[in-house]
């Protein structure tokens, strides 16, 4: 599934995600290839990033739901300078907001496409990167590629 993230044809690398008990469900979902967002059982609001409470009504009764993984590029930038590893070895790369069908907007990368071809409004689907970790965790990183 992993696409070409720029950087001379090498797949865009991501620093390993850091999870807390509050966000673990999301990162583990990404490790399974699922886009896990939250829905409040009291007021029905959907949200991302994951929280222990609903940011609309502060209820603690939150359920995890698997989103479709479909969305549209809301805005983007082609990053040409970042001195930090691993990104410095993968320039240029696309940073974007993708608006999910279910509503929430996620900050992400768009991969598998020439950065010059990315457009606002472009239909995209989820694409997950996994990494070898030495702590036994099976987290994934959500990116998007053209639908």
């Amino acid at each position, binding site marked *: 599934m992993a696409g070409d993230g720029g950087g001379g044809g090498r797949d865009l690398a*991501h*620093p*390993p*995600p*850091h*999870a*807390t008990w*509050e*966000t673990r469900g999301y990162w583990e979902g990404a490790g399974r290839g699922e886009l896990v967002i939250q829905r409040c059982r009291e007021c029905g609001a959907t*949200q*991302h*990033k994951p*929280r222990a409470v609903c*940011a609309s009504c502060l209820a603690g009764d939150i359920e995890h739901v698997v989103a479709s993984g479909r969305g549209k590029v*809301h*805005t*983007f*930038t*082609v*990053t*040409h*300078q*970042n*001195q*930090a*590893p*691993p*990104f410095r070895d*993968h320039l*240029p*790369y696309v*940073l*974007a*907001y993708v*608006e999910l069908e279910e*509503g*929430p*907007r*996620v*900050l*992400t*990368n768009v991969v598998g496409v020439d950065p010059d071809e990315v457009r*606002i409004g472009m239909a995209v689907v989820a694409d997950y990167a996994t990494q070898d970790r030495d702590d036994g965790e099976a987290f994934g*990183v959500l990116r998007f590629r053209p639908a």
Partner: protein
Amino acid sequence: MNLSGSIAIAGVHEHPTRWAPDKTEFQIMAESARGALDDAGLTLDDVDGLFAASMTMGAMGTVELAEYLDLKPDYVDGTNIGGSSFVAHVNHAAAAIHAGLCQVALILYGSTAASNAVAIGTGMGGGGRGWADAFSAPYGVTTVGSYALVARLHMDHYGTKPEQLAEIAVAMRTHAGLNPAAKMRQPITVDDVLASRVISDPLHLLDCCIISDGGGAVVVTSAERAADLAKPPVLLLGCGEALAHQEIGSPDMLTIAARRSGERAFGMAGVTRDDIDLCTIYDSFTITVLATLENLGFCEVGDGGEFVSGGRIKPGGALPVNPDGGGLSSNHPGMRGIFLVIEATRQLRGECGDRQVSGARLACVHGTGGTLGVSHSGATLILGAA
């Protein structure tokens, strides 16, 4: 008594340094404090309120700073909402003084960002472990990139052109040419901006603020007390602050915090945009100025590109913005908000020499902090000559 008009800026000092490998943050703050207190005709003994933030001060940084200065203030505020913090500090100091909790507030900033080679805008890797940071760390979100997300959206929605953003950089450099203290004074053209390398599309190198060392200090007190001090007081007529973020509820990314903070500040001051003689606006990037002018109501959202063209914000224009040259050309030691307050104050006193905006009586100050396209803060002041 209303807060509006009852509080004054009595002293300011911009540290002259732009490169200080031989100084520390606290040293720059202390030297700036001396300058601003001298400017006001006050001493450290008069100070009973301490307000500060910096790029490296930790959770108890103001306690450590108070020890460095041997200050035992009655009121302390270490609010850090990014580069706008010092604009918000004026707001907070005004509230504290108005409530009688302190009498003389000292606001400080110091930074050695340049001599420490801090890649302020483009050095973001992984490792973010904060609740929100953990969700941006995997993606290489740079500071420049977060502003570029807004610039791209503005261009897409309103047809704003790179040339129009470049006009802002050219205007700041033109102002800097009149400021002997500015770091970058060599004139540039729109073509120079567009020919500079792309940092995060659509923002070029010359769309980005410079990195310098520096610092400054501001003394705030009651208008009553300021009336008897060394310099003509500059009155706080209105203030407001706001926070904004982008992920829940699909908010309009082109409506930035300045919308709400500006409405509050103008409402409190009871003045209109047409009354304003000059602005000092946080120009981290060219898009920041454009989005701020729109959201403060100087033009409609979408019309910013046209508004900044034709010399309107340049020296001698109808609405000069950042007569000191701003962060794009004068100085940008990481968190620039304090210089917005200092320059507006000095302009309203009429002490700015070649770069003086003639007849300046009312200034609008706006600081943006954080990452515009992800989460950010805004703080607005309306300042008036006494």
